[in-house]
């Protein structure tokens, strides 16, 4: 084989091999986390500690972000409606439906991906490059059970809780601006007539899926970190990019699944 053909195959093959390896590592991490949740003893004290760090510490961040999202989205949509037909009777109902089904879990997921995903990758990545993870393995402590399972359990529950809280915050903010700028009655805005059980199920499934995938992806980035502080930096960047990407992709697929399951 001549060298240009070899170069071509190397140029094509190397990224394919690297992506396959990274994907295999991530899937393996996710599978082992799920299996450990079922089979291994759970360190509940650590789960509660992580729930506090992931959930309680994110409350101000989620309040500000989702509060502004509620303000902006209601203001913009009401402005559009005003130009076409000045009837705001369904504004609150439609807003609440899309918040529950789409925006509250997804925006919360993206916020947690950046805040918590980077922290998990940096912490576990530092432990990996300073051989603390190897030391854990020498002590017969599986790094997945010890480091990822508590974070996965805590994050899964807390993203769901924060999503519910996000609906509340965004709705209050939206209701206030609707009343202040467009003179929409609070009771008119707070209508649940478009919200069905399907919306609640799809929104909750999204929150649970994001909550599980963020610590698994970020934890795997940390566990595969190499080198020194530069390696930890790369692991953190990879974690933020991949967890954000995962939230968007999961949102797309779960929306389709929700549509197929509940379209009748």
């Amino acid at each position, binding site marked *: 084989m001549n060298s240009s053909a070899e170069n071509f195959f190397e140029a094509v093959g190397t990224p394919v091999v690297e992506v396959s390896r990274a994907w295999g590592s991530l899937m393996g991490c996710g599978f082992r986390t799920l299996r450990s949740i079922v089979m291994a003893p759970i360190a509940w004290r650590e789960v509660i500690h992580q729930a506090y760090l992931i959930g309680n510490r994110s409350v101000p961040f989620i309040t500000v972000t989702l509060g502004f999202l509620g303000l902006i989205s209601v203001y913009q949509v009401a402005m559009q409606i005003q130009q076409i037909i000045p009837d705001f009777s369904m504004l609150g109902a439609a807003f609440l439906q899309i918040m529950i089904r789409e925006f509250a879990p997804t925006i919360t997921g993206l916020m947690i991906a950046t805040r918590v995903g980077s922290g998990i990758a940096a912490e576990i990545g530092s432990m990996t490059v*300073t*051989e*603390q993870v*190897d*030391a*854990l*393995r*020498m*002590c*017969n*402590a*599986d790094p997945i059970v010890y480091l990822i399972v508590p974070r996965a359990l805590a994050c899964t529950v807390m993203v769901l809780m924060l999503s519910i809280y996000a609906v509340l915050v965004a709705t209050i903010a939206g209701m206030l601006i609707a009343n202040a700028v467009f003179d929409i009655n609070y009771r008119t805005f707070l209508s649940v007539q478009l919200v069905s059980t399907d919306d609640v199920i799809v929104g909750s499934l999204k929150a649970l899926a994001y909550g599980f995938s963020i610590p698994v992806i970020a934890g795997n980035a940390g566990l595969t970190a190499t080198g020194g502080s530069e390696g930890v930096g790369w692991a953190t960047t990879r974690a933020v990019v991949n967890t954000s990407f995962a939230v968007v992709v999961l949102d797309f697929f779960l929306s389709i699944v929700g549509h197929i399951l509940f379209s009748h």
Partner: protein
Amino acid sequence: MIEFIDIHKRFGTNVVLEGVSITVDTGQVLYIIGASGAGKSVLVKHLVGLLRPDSGRIILDGEDITWLDERGFYPIRRKCAMVFQNSTLFDSMTLLENVMLPLRKHQKMSRKDAAVAAHAKLELVNMEREAHQYPSAIGDGLRKRVAIARALTMDPQFVIFDEPTTGLDPMAASTVDDLIRSLRADAGVTSIVVSHDLRSIFTVADRVAMIYQGQIRLDSTPEGFRSSDDPIIHQFVNGLPEGPMAV
């Protein structure tokens, strides 16, 4: 007895080990030396399954352990402990809890029994008074002593020391040397020590092996090492910046 047979290991395009073969007899203290990045730590991590070779075999007491899975290495790690280069104590645990961890995980010991056993090991390295402090509250040298205590909790038959005296003051380094000697004399422990510390090598080692360019350059007694006329060995022993070995 520990046998590394024709070990090859590369990370991406970086070839680290190219056919390393070496044997450590029971009760012996082998020092592995070489320049930074020569592959000393990489070689010893193969023995406890923290790294897997690309090819070659590792035999421990007659058992081929090369391709054991993670779970298969659990019993190996009970009898073969490792003291890491960076101490690797867990910041969220007290020193006592750090030393208790292998007992709790390997032997499923109760918290109370593990604490008693861990105190005894901390006493061995003169750290019992600091037992309830956190790693961040003590210096590097003291952390290393606690890491040694943690490695010894399972009363291992084999101990790997990865640069145990690096960063220690001369008195603390002598204490570590004495500990390695007493492990061999009192308990017949086989030790592999990765080190650059020439003083330790010439006072503790039974044998010295040097890794250079992925292969064993010399496998000899300390005296043979000191009197070698190999220019690479000569440069290393005398710490010369000029010579055939790139610095």
